[in-house]
């Protein structure tokens, strides 16, 4: 169940500077738990008590997971997950 996760610049402090890391999980939620076990602090930057953070975009392959199942989105071996902070402001 290996999934590649692409990490944006601002979160590479949690991955020792790595642009991409590997993780495992049947769902996005499980994947984030797995990543947290090796990259402590990362999960809290992606998820809050309401689910995925509003201004963090997570994509499964070419789709925004908000339009799939959010944290319950199912993953399969070889999938690619991309994390990108929203570019937004007032």
């Amino acid at each position, binding site marked *: 169940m290996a999934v590649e996760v692409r990490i944006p610049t601002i979160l590479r402090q949690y991955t020792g500077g790595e642009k991409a890391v590997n993780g495992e999980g049947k769902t996005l939620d499980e994947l984030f738990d797995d990543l947290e076990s090796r990259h402590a602090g990362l999960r809290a930057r992606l998820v809050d008590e309401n689910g995925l953070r509003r*201004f963090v975009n997570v*994509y499964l392959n070419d789709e925004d997971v908000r339009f799939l199942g959010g944290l319950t989105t199912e993953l399969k071996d070889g999938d690619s997950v*991309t994390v*990108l*902070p*929203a*570019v937004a*402001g*007032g």
Partner: protein
Amino acid sequence: MLTIDAAIRDAIIAHARADHPDEACGVVAGPAGSDRPERFIPMANAARSTTFYEFDSMDLLKLYREMDDRDEVPVIVYHSHTATEAYPSRTDISYASEPDAHYVLVSTREPDTVEFRSFRIRDGEVTEEPVTVIPA
């Protein structure tokens, strides 16, 4: 310090004027590590708002994939304020997520006055920097 070609500065200002009174937004990409803003990429403001901007999530993915493929980074992230000064708002500061980018703010509140300023936004701290324009 931000160093920028006059043509790119003018393109950012023209985009901001064209979208007024909504906020305009975009990126100027450049080779990774160069700090040179070279490729002007106007983006749609998915919020279509006079007080907020946000890149559409699919446009954002496409943009970052393209920059990755070309070994580019967002050297400038720009947006306009249409009724207030060209200074980062509290919202701008809280969502700023490119510590290595120059955040360019343009104000279109005065039709005849250009306000074009550049900032670093890191860990909630705003630092204004000088802008050097290279004439065409």
